[in-house]
């Protein structure tokens, strides 16, 4: 998932007024004097909508072909590629991995982000140092970090060394080579990379909580944990919903980490829709099938965004 996506859903969910079209048209003056905005939005609109919708349309067309991407006369096969997809166990594996990935990374990141934010709002020493450590992974490219993660989790890697050092040698493992542990490692890496975003959003949201309420709760004898679950958690709900939507789209977009760390393997254990589509479309050159999978992915991403976006708006 791209970093730019980070804020994306945040404002979709948090600022529904501007986005939902519920507000009356705004603009200075009233009546016909207002200059037309069309020429102003046209460059961005034509560029984005042109490129994106052209590509989607093109992909939709290709999805009805059996094509290797270069041959001049691709065969039209109608919906055959979609039927292949629904019968392809790897496709369902990829969906299952995406769901597990979303649930686990979202829950862990939420718990960690919330705890870090609460701890750093508690007058600890050197807050900025901790902030930097949590946030640095966000600015580092997953592609840059992939080689070291491959090394850390390899059979002779640092992770096994640490396990040995703290007396858990029995857990040592070729983490990436075994189907059952490869997916958890991919999730752990993602959590490492993205908790900084969750943290920083919760941290910002918490600055907007009325300190008097917290003070009152404390005087009434509420424990830190109770304050966190009863006061803080409900008041950052908007952020949580936004992060959930962000995580759904992020999970569907997952590519860099599984591609670079495990190549979707071993035995498809870390195959995601992104890596699957890439492998089918580029190295295997089954462009028609890849396009059909792309359209399915797009439908999933759109419905995920709509489902969470609408929920967020109702709450508001």
């Amino acid at each position: 998932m791209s970093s730019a996506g980070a804020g994306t859903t945040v404002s979709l969910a948090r600022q529904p007024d501007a986005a939902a079209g519920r507000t009356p048209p705004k603009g200075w003056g009233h009546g016909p004097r207002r200059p037309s905005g069309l020429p102003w939005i046209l460059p961005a609109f034509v560029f984005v909508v042109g490129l994106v919708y052209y590509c989607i349309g093109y992909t939709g067309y290709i999805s009805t072909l059996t094509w290797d991407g270069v041959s001049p006369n691709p065969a039209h096969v109608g919906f055959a590629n979609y039927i292949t997809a629904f019968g392809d166990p790897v496709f369902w594996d990829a969906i299952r991995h995406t769901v597990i990935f979303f649930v686990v990374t979202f829950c862990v990141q939420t718990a960690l982000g919330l705890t870090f934010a609460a701890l750093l709002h508690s007058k600890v020493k050197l807050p900025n140092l901790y902030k930097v450590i949590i946030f640095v992974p966000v600015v580092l490219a997953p592609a840059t970090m992939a080689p070291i993660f491959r090394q850390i989790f390899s059979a002779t890697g640092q992770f096994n060394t640490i396990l040995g050092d703290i007396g858990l040698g029995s857990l040592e493992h070729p983490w990436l080579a075994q189907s059952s542990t490869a997916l958890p490692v991919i999730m752990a890496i993602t959590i490492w990379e993205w908790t900084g975003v969750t943290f920083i959003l919760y941290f910002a949201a918490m600055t907007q909580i009325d300190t008097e309420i917290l003070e009152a709760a404390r005087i009434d004898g509420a424990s830190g944990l109770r304050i966190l679950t009863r006061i803080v958690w409900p008041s950052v709900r908007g952020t949580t919903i936004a992060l959930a939507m962000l995580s759904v789209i992020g999970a569907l977009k997952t590519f860099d980490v599984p591609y670079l760390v495990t190549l979707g393997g071993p035995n498809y254990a870390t195959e995601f829709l992104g890596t699957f589509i890439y492998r089918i479309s580029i190295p295997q050159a089954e462009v028609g099938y890849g396009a059909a999978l792309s359209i399915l992915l797009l439908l999933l991403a759109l419905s995920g965004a709509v489902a969470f976006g609408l929920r967020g708006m109702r709450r508001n």
Partner: protein
Amino acid sequence: MFETRRLSSKIVLQVILTIMVLPFLFPLIAMVQESLAGQGWDNYRVVWDTGVVPEFFRNSAIIAAGVIIIVYALTMLAAFGFSKLHIRGREIYFWMMLAALTLPEVVLLTPLFSTAIRLGLYNTYFSVMLPLAALQIPFAVLLTRNFVNGIPDDLFDAARVDGASAARIFWRIILPLTRPIAAAIIILTLIGAWNDYLLPLVFLQSSATETITLLPSYFVSEFSDDQTKVVASAVITAIPEIIAYLCLQRLFERGLTAGALK
């Protein structure tokens, strides 16, 4: 948030926090350690002496700068139009753009690939720059539009009474007043463009155009038997990113929270 009036609770919180951040620090320490394994600092010298590192940096910088310029220019124009000018059916246009937010890059691969080849853009900066910009603009417009909505209409009324044209208002009022959000957008776009992997992977095929995210794979084929040099190259790419973040820490954090807070 938590009680810190007693010394004991202060220490407990500090210890919990420290233990919790250790896993975040660990990969970075392991990375530096690994890059110095075997031949020590010579790993860095060998990587640097290949001479490709600055080239990859230059490519990333050119692409990121191009994306930022396109995104900034088109976003500012569009946000002004959406927020303060008259557009019939404006929300339809807006939502058509916003739908692009959910779009995974991988969906664009095949059409972009054949189009890029047909237009002769394959293995040029543009083949990565243009789709990246198109994917970044919707969110930037969303943020900036919300920001411009917060600028009072009176300001524009007054300018209109004085006979200022829309273009003049854009230049004299919108651009200066949107600087805070512009900074956030530039940072967001920078991270997105700089860290992108899939588009360069597919569209860039020579070290004259490849970006730094492709550097580790480049060195994997170069030093297949020597993981330490690959990691050393990763450290070299990570350092400028960390420095940039440390220097502009507030901007980075504001960039990411810009959508959440008004």
